[in-house]
């Protein structure tokens, strides 16, 4: 009798564990798209605050942690105040930024000359009340006089961090887009597969399609000639068709998501930021361009008219 009761106890406990596990696995409070923590514009705002500077590396948001990692890795470990501004926001600009950075590896640059010196998190001796403790701190940690040029190092080493971040939060879109561009430097096929994984987790996020579209254009350029004065080789055309499909899908999703109250700077309600606007514009423009390049000018004009309802500048692309 006692033995049976014991067995029943084990059985009930295991049953409860299974039910609890099943319930827990099916409700994730953080499984939503967007949100301030993941939003790039919000990230810029919070990281340019005095509070963020005060807290140094102390962060809870994955987006912030990744951002800090990126800045540190690309500057040889030197901790500058967050300074990579809007330039690296939209997918189109980000891919150019990645290219530019990789071409500058090992060289010294005065970043963002127009912004002047970017302060370091560990302050200069003049701004540091800690005296010799501060001097030792500057010796032990990677530190460089902020008036001196920044050193640019290889961003390839960031790839594992992007992999981890997207594993930890599969709705972290920036992790997929930025990670995909860095990965593209090392292995273009893996980069496409990485973005594809992001799309599977977030099929409604248009920026992922924009990113893949740009990666495919790079692949097409590697495969053959894409300039407008020559006929496209079949393999190149096939790749560009895939890119066009991605841009079209992105444009469709973006137009649905875009709020009606977007201002001149590209900001709107519901967390719509200038980088969303830039990517929506890029998707529409690239769809028109690629449709024309792939030999369907009528459809390209129709698309230009359609997109012009939202972006009047698309009318300039009519031919």
């Amino acid at each position, binding site marked *: 009798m006692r033995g049976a009761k014991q067995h029943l106890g084990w059985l009930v406990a295991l049953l*409860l564990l299974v039910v609890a596990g099943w319930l827990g696995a099916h409700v994730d409070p953080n499984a939503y798209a967007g949100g301030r923590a993941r939003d790039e514009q919000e990230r810029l705002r919070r990281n340019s605050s*005095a509070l963020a500077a005060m807290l140094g590396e102390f962060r809870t948001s994955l987006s912030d942690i990744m951002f800090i990692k990126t800045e540190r890795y690309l500057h040889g470990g030197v901790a500058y105040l967050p300074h990579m501004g809007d330039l690296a926001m939209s997918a189109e600009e980000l891919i150019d930024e990645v290219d530019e950075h990789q071409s500058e590896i090992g060289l010294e640059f005065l970043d963002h000359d127009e912004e002047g010196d970017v302060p370091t998190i560990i302050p200069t001796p003049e701004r540091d009340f800690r005296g010799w403790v501060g001097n030792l701190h500057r010796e032990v940690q990677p530190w460089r006089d902020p008036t001196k040029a920044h050193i640019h190092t290889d961003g390839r080493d960031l790839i594992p961090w992007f992999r981890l971040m997207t594993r930890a939060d599969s709705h972290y879109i920036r992790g997929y887009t930025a990670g995909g561009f860095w990965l593209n430097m090392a292995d273009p096929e893996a980069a496409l597969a990485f973005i594809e994984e992001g799309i599977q987790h977030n099929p409604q996020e248009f920026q992922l399609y924009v990113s893949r579209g740009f990666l495919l254009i790079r692949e097409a350029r590697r495969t053959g000639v894409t300039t407008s004065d020559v006929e496209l080789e079949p393999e190149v055309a096939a790749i560009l068709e895939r890119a066009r499909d991605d841009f079209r899908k992105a444009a469709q999703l973006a137009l649905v998501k875009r709020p009606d109250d977007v201002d001149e700077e590209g900001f709107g309600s519901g967390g719509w930021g200038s980088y969303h606007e830039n990517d929506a514009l890029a998707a529409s423009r690239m769809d028109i361009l690629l449709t024309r390049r792939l030999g369907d000018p009528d459809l390209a004009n129709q698309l230009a008219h359609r997109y012009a309802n939202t972006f009047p500048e698309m009318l300039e692309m009519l031919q």
Partner: protein
Amino acid sequence: MRSAFHMAVWPIVRATVLEAARRKDIAVLAIFMVALLFVLGSARVVGLERPAAGTFLLNLSLTLIIGGAHLVTLLVAARQIPDEIEQRTLYPLLARPIHRSHVLIGKWLAACLMGLALFFSLFIPVWLLVPRLEHYETGTLIQLLTLQPMALMVTAAVPLFLTLCFPRGLAMALALLIVLGADYLVRFVDGFPLIWLVPNPSRLNMVLRYTDGIAPLSFWGWSALMLAALFWTASLLLLSRQLFERRAL
């Protein structure tokens, strides 16, 4: 007739809390409070010039107090059974007409109460000192405040169970891994069979959802998490009871 709770469980809860007070564990609460107030005060000094900075501070503070409450709950629960056995104080306790399961429940409840006391006593200064400059959903806050006590219940049960299976050090390390890292573990070793069976109190953490300004979970989603916590706790306590009953002292 007085219930078993009043006769057996409550005296153990009381004794455990008093023992913690005697051991000056209350200092831990004070330390956390001072550290938090220092961070919050410093933030007010440098100024929160942007609403985004306010949200950032709110998220950080809530994350810290939840982490602190779980850590204290875990540390208190993890030492209960090993200490009683090591210091041989369990024998006189069991010589009284007290069932072993009452001892377990009493110890678990005491750990829960201490975690809860820490959570709410730190939540109040955060609530008073951190300005809320953006839109946040009240419903999500209510869900956060109702789910956290449940999460602490799971956290208290995890080390209690593990210290009955493994030596104290190993149990504590595993408990830390589960309480603080189960959510990451589940995501990173996605393909590992039955990984979803690991109790996951972090799943009940609504801080990010709240500070992101996201609407509350549906009633069913919230109920599912409440039930999950309840079942994890019940299961761990039942498993602990099974092990404790069979244990030769």
